[in-house]
């Protein structure tokens, strides 16, 4: 018996639809956990969050409690936060620096390298018990790309670099705003739950079609502060040209000419007159280091990148790194951070964070309305998906050539990969 299709991609009929049960059914979420979260490279955190040996953060990643830790030799490690004896979490702090991870239940302890170093009354164990076999467990694969640490629960997974495919070009573009090429997670996290399926935030994170209506108040805020808001040409809904693009393995991006201001480096009146010289200085540094063309690419475009399945790097009003995990089919937990150049001046850092808060975050002028939109979708489809089974996702399909940021090619790229994996394919296969 063939399973009913959940994603319909009919190029001839120019039809693309997604079955709403994918956003509602607990059984589908269970399958996602096995076929997507256990087989894809999943973002854990950033190397800048663990600067010194022993620095750690505890997080839930792909449904598991993990410890992201810098080991005694300075290498980022990921440990499953469970004691090898009976299973209690060995670290219950959110973050800090540890010499040992100590399980208080019976007193087993592990060092920064995950090795079991302390077992009270070890002489009572039989000779077959060997401490070196009971270190903290690690995901089969952990690797980094330019500071971003990922794990993979599939030992056979393709290399991270290959998995990221065309997304590396867009990560590199973000990092080019830093004179040293290095960026760091800035202190402070924004965490919030959304009562909606996790895939709705994937869509929302790079859906520019919703801006005009969902973010009317934010657009008004920019307009009232003196930002030019006229759409450039026929067919455009927004004040600047933008495209949607697939990057391979389900990753995709919208790549837009900036109109909303950028801390690196396009001043808008919202930043205030005092910020102007600093933004001009940053711009001059970009030009001197990268040349006019690349500097313009870095400074004058906004990019919203989705790394399949659940990492979002938006380089717009500021740079935000955002990841989210399903708590249930109709609820997700979101974590968002700000990313900035390690060598940024205090003045530039302040502008970056201020600009961040105009748009992003649960107290910003835009994100609360995104949250509301996603929750409204979930409320709408939760109990009606049998009567109204399909969502429409065909914007731009009839067009030859370029797909705009307000079309849906990039959303379709996500869903096609989702569908491939859910039918059993492995990433890259």
């Amino acid at each position, binding site marked *: 018996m063939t399973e009913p299709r959940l994603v319909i991609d009919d190029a001839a009929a120019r039809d693309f639809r997604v079955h709403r049960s994918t956003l509602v059914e607990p059984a589908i979420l269970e399958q996602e956990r096995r076929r997507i979260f256990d087989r894809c490279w999943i973002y854990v955190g950033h190397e800048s969050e663990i600067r010194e040996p022993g620095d750690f953060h505890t997080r839930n990643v792909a449904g598991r409690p993990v410890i992201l830790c810098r080991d005694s030799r300075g290498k980022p490690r990921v440990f499953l936060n469970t004691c090898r004896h009976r299973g209690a979490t060995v670290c219950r702090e*959110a*973050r800090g620096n540890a010499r040992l991870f100590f399980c208080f239940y019976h007193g087993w302890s592990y060092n920064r390298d995950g090795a079991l170093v302390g077992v009270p009354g070890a002489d009572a164990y039989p000779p077959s018990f060997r401490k070196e076999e009971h270190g903290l467990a690690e995901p089969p694969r952990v690797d980094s790309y330019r500071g971003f640490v990922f794990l993979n629960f599939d030992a056979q997974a393709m290399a991270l670099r290959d998995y990221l495919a065309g997304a590396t070009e867009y990560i590199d573009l973000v990092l080019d705003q830093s004179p040293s090429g290095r960026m760091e997670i*800035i*202190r*402070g*996290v*924004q*965490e*919030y*739950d959304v*009562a909606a399926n996790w895939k709705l935030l994937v869509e929302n994170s790079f859906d520019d079609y919703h801006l005009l*209506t*969902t973010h*009317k*108040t*934010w657009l*008004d*805020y920019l307009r*009232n*502060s003196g930002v030019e808001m006229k759409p450039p040409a026929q067919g455009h809904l927004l004040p600047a040209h933008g495209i949607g693009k697939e990057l391979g393995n389900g990753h995709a991006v919208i790549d837009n000419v900036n109109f909303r201001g950028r801390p690196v480096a396009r001043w808008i009146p919202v930043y205030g007159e005092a910020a102007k010289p600093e933004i001009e200085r940053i711009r001059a540094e970009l030009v001197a280091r990268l040349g006019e063309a690349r500097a313009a690419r870095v400074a004058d475009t906004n990019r919203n990148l989705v790394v399949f399945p659940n990492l979002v790097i938006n380089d717009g009003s500021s740079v935000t790194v955002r990841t989210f995990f399903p708590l249930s089919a109709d609820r997700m*937990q*979101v974590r968002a*951070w*700000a990313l900035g150049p390690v060598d940024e001046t*205090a003045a530039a*850092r*302040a502008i970056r*964070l*201020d600009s*961040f*808060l*105009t748009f992003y*975050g*649960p*107290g910003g*002028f835009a994100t*609360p*309305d995104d*949250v*509301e*939109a996603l929750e409204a979708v979930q*409320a709408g489809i939760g109990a009606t998906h049998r009567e109204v089974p399909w969502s429409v996702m065909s914007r731009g399909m009839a067009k030859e050539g370029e797909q705009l940021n307000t079309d849906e090619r990039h959303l379709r790229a996500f869903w096609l990969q989702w569908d491939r994996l859910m039918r059993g394919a492995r990433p890259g296969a």
Partner: protein
Amino acid sequence: MSRTISRAEVEEFLYAEAALLDAWDLEGWLALLSDDARYHVPSNEQRGGDPAETLFLIADDIHRIRARVARLQDRAAHAEQPRSRTRRLIANVRIVGQDGDELAVEANFAVHHFRRGERLREYVGQYRYRLRLTPGGLRIIRREALLDALELGSLGSVSFIL
């Protein structure tokens, strides 16, 4: 012109502010702010930081506060349409410092937040105020709301004036 302010006067002021916010009288609330007022909600894991170097949930200067109020009065502020109801309980009010015309005040809050189709959200935490005594009465220079929850969950959304 500094004079001693009693706790009762401060309490009266905070209760009046809470009443304005619960009534969604945001223009009335703006009138309680000085022209250099700031409104902060730090991230719950970094409550002691400076918004110039730490990511907050909200770090508004007076211009951003006014823009926030304008936004909340627009029917297109979807996160507050239909508007939520709030009921604020303010307690444990303490004057913790006075410097000339300026007062440092701390108070506990429990803001109960109700929306259609949603369960009660209970925002619990501490307000830290800097108030200025003016001929027209007390004015807010700085208003910081520190959330106590360790896992914000649905409290992470702060779409109204907390």
